[in-house]
């Protein structure tokens, strides 16, 4: 088997169009036996609040078209964000981290977060993971 790879992704956006690539790449990365680390900060934190994935919308003025986009996504048989998260977790290779500073700024408590969140961490933890990661993305 080839050497185990590592992915580190900063999830900065909380909109539907950005969260799809995050969870598509993470579920696939997990399925490819890569260790995937997702660090949720700023608007990305909204995605891991309870009900956050379900309520994610398209950005700005396009938000009015969110329902239509979700319908089209469903039509081609692509999973919802919630289902993709479940697939990520089923690989046992995808870890979720919440940014502690964002939580303080936005007054988000641990209980507000979905139970899939593995830990609440700071920048040093992310950098420790990212410095020797094979894939580093900011989405």
């Amino acid at each position, binding site marked *: *088997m*080839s050497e185990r*790879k590592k992915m580190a992704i900063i999830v900065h956006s909380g909109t539907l169009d950005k969260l799809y690539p995050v969870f*598509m790449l993470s*579920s*696939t990365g*997990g*399925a*490819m*036996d*890569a260790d995937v680390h997702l660090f949720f900060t700023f608007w990305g934190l909204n995605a891991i609040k309870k009900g956050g994935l379900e309520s994610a919308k398209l950005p700005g003025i396009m938000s009015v078209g969110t329902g239509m986009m979700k319908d089209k996504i469903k039509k*081609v*048989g*692509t*999973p919802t964000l919630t289902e*993709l998260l479940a*697939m990520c977790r*089923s*690989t046992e290779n995808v870890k979720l981290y919440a940014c502690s500073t964002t939580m303080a700024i936005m007054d988000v408590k641990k209980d507000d977060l979905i139970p899939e969140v593995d830990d609440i961490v700071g920048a040093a933890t992310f950098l420790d993971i990212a410095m020797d990661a094979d894939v580093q993305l900011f989405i």
Partner: protein
Amino acid sequence: MANVKVDVDLDCKGMFCPMPIVQLKKATKNMKPGQVVRLVATDPGSVRDIPAWASKTGNKVLESSEESGVFTYLIEVS
């Protein structure tokens, strides 16, 4: 493909990325080394995605073929 014994059949027709890969991972998790999964898909992305998955997970694509838009892969679990 006649000589290869297929242990698991995986129908991914109509599915798009990332579903075939996720399903393949799920299926191979409980398989033993040497066992073979036959995956059938219609996603054209699978042509490169399946070998890419195999190379990263250390599994082997024994055969792949296409017939009128349906792709068939035989993958041996390592």
